[in-house]
């Protein structure tokens, strides 16, 4: 399940939806938060995206994870619009029979999202520059 939305989300609600009681032995979640980027507490943080393409890319990422590992359920939620420091930006959750698959799939999904999903962050007046460490993180899944 993927969602792109302005409003906040409940991590616990989404996490519980992932579980198949009796089957899911493992549930791994990742939540990304807005970090402090300025001394000005009023500084705004903006997430722009490419509507339509975003959803396509997130769906593809989910399908790739599900075909690569034995998983019960997966979920990606990404917020857009104005956010404040500390707020939740993104949720990636995976349930699976065993933990190794859940960890791998969860990290895979956020790593690929970071380099392929058309979102762009603006901190105050500054568009955030892409980080080489994100490209390296994504590349490790291609080996």
């Amino acid at each position: 399940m993927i969602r792109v939305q302005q409003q906040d989300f409940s991590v616990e609600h989404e996490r519980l939806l992932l579980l198949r009681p009796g089957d899911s032995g493992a549930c791994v979640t990742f939540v990304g938060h807005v970090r402090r980027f300025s001394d000005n507490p009023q500084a705004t943080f903006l997430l722009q995206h490419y509507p339509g393409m975003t959803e396509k890319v997130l769906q593809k990422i989910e399908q790739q994870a599900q075909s690569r590992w034995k998983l019960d359920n997966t979920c990606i939620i990404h917020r857009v619009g104005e956010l404040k420091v500390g707020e939740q930006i993104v949720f990636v959750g995976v349930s699976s029979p065993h933990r190794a698959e859940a960890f791998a799939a969860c990290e895979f999904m956020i790593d690929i999202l970071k380099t392929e999903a058309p979102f762009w962050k603006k901190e105050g007046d500054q568009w955030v520059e892409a980080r080489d460490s994100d490209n390296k993180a994504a590349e490790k899944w291609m080996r």
Partner: protein
Amino acid sequence: MAGNTISLLYFAKLADDLGVTNEQYSISEKLSLGELKLQLSQRGEQWQDLKAAHIKCALNQTLCDDNTLVKFGDEVAFFPPVTGG
């Protein structure tokens, strides 16, 4: 007129620098994405950015390269490297 136009979209810093987020653009016939970039880059100095290696292109919401053919009704997006998550 809609019959021979394509939609152009620009995002993030690229949109700010060019001062435009979207436009309808007339083409006379099918052309490659590389040719489209060449045409647009002739609009002025800022538009040279479109040819920069780090600027990505999506045709109908799928990443593509300069050899891809663009035809009437297509949606072409230009954007800098993504930074979500």
